[in-house]
């Protein structure tokens, strides 16, 4: 009887200790050693919704912003996920102040929903503070000898790329070989033929976002991961046993940002958005592995970001509106149909 009483007291005591310790302050930072956010102080909180992979960049840029006079006292709630999913969440009412998506159509969706001003991309960088290129991530030592798009079609090569219906990364990943094979869209048939062979014969899994694709690849699935160069750098810097090979002809990735016009903290959100284009922030993006858009900063970091022989852009293919409706629209887009057929 005494023993059970002792054990039950121990159980209750530990439960109580747990509850008491939890009554400390919380916050959104998951960095070890970060101080709890002082909920009492007058702070603004900006809700940031982004696509899956830019967290390494924001982890650098946000503290820098908080040091500026415009950013003093601004806290951030950050949500990362597949670009399409995040965009749909915001369109469905998730409370966002600032968004950063992988592809422009995910912002256009919000413009059409009346949540983002239609002049969101009127600045000199067209609303795009950073970008990347499509690259191929392989196991360390490149055992399967992958160097170019055709190598992906070698028998037995399994390619990991996310699901284009939820992920922005997936769209870039499929546009790169499409542009390469169709000579910038001039020969769509050749481009689509390649995509068909690739998706039908070599893509076996459908991770829902760029980050999940990386995770799947790192856990041992597949031989090649198509991804952003910044994500490849992120994995390599973390010490994962991978390396990346950028094919000579690839695609320029441009990731837009925008503020929600109904935001309660519109001024601060705009200030943050503007901050991303300043040289200081551009350098931080470059340090995190993202290609900056400021030409001076880009020059500084030229060694880190080798220029491919041929870099196709979305403008070469006619802009996102055309590309999205002809290639990616559900049920009718050419690539969408191929992907659906191969994976349903």
């Amino acid at each position, binding site marked *: 009887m005494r023993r059970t009483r002792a054990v039950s007291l121990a159980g209750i005591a530990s439960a109580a200790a747990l509850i008491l310790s939890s009554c400390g302050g919380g916050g959104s930072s998951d960095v070890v050693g970060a101080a709890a956010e002082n909920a009492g102080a007058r702070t603004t909180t900006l809700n940031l919704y982004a696509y899956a992979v830019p967290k390494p960049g924001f982890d650098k840029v946000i503290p820098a912003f908080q040091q500026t006079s415009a950013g003093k006292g601004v806290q951030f709630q950050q949500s990362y996920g*597949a670009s399409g*999913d995040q965009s*749909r969440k915001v369109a469905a009412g998730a409370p966002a102040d600032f968004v950063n998506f992988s592809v422009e159509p995910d912002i256009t969706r919000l413009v059409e929903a009346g949540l983002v001003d239609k002049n969101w991309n009127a600045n000199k960088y067209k609303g795009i503070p950073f970008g990347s290129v499509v690259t191929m991530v392989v196991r360390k030592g490149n055992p399967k000898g992958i160097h170019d798009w055709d190598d992906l079609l070698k028998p037995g090569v399994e390619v990991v790329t996310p*699901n284009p*219906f*939820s992920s922005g990364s997936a769209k870039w990943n499929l546009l790169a070989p499409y542009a390469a094979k169709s000579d910038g869209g001039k020969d769509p048939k050749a481009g689509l033929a390649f995509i068909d062979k690739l998706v039908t014969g070599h893509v*076996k*899994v*459908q*991770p*829902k976002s760029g980050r999940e694709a990386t995770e*799947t690849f*790192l*856990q*041992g*699935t597949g031989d090649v991961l198509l991804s952003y160069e910044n994500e490849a750098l992120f994995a390599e810097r973390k010490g994962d046993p991978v390396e990346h090979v950028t094919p000579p002809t690839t695609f320029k990735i441009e990731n837009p940002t925008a503020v929600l016009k109904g935001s309660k903290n519109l001024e601060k959100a705009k200030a943050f958005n503007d901050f991303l284009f300043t040289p200081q922030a551009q350098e931080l993006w470059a340090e995190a592995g993202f290609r900056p858009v400021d030409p001076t900063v880009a020059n500084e970091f030229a060694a880190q970001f080798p220029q491919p022989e041929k870099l196709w852009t979305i403008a070469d293919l006619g802009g996102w509106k055309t590309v999205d409706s002809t290639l990616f629209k559900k049920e009718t887009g050419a690539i969408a149909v191929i992907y659906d057929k191969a*994976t*349903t």
Partner: protein
Amino acid sequence: MTATVIARRDDTAQVPSLPAPSKSSRHLSARPLGVGLVGLWLSVILLLPLAALTVTSFDDGWSGFWEAVTAPVALASLWVTVLVAVIVALLNAVMGTLIAWVLVRDDFRGKGVVNALIDLPFALPTIVASIVLLSLYGPSSPVRVHLNATRPGLVVALAFVTLPFVVRSVQPVLIEADREVEEAAASLGASSWSTFRRVVLPTLAPAVVSGTGLAFARAIGEYGSVVLIGGNIPRKTEVASQYIQQQIEMDRPTNAAAVSVALLTIAFLTLLALRVFASRSQRREEGEA
């Protein structure tokens, strides 16, 4: 859930009706307001969501429903789910009975601790189970066993979470089992094995079936424990719950609802079969008694 609850659940199904309350007594009977409140609560929390699910699944009519469920990848996910669940259920039937036997009939130091640990999968969050198994059998496995993204990996994860069902179902029956018949059989010269097969097993059978059925029903719906170790490879290791989640994220709620209803139907049929089997075996027992 301990076995006592499972045993009692079957008990209450056989409850003889209470004597009619005298009109003058004011004991705690179920007043209409109370019943109504309970009904409202159960409806809002349980029934209405499932109703919305079922109705949405038929948004495209019967043909839409059928198409959604028989889409090759959807069908494959249901197949993988049922296949792996059946394997796990059978594994549990054997190992669960064995473990229950050892816990009841054997004695060794630390038996109490082992007995308490059986309930751990009930108390442990499923995502923790996933992480725990992934660390041992995943890509960073210290023993070079890589089960992630394979069907055996799914089996291991599901075996973990369904461990207690058969054990806790069989234990009370074993405890209450009448040893006299076994001893009689032994004194008549029967070997241990045939005594087990002919005397003990039939007594345990209803409990084993009940526990196995519950394990199966739990396994087909499982998500948290397979989400990290399964690898989510369509047609190979993608289970129905993962397929459903993907459909919701791809903005196809009707498809998701249809496959959900299919999954629910399998679960309900299993539990219905269990109930029928339980009442039939109870009737047989009462007939023999």
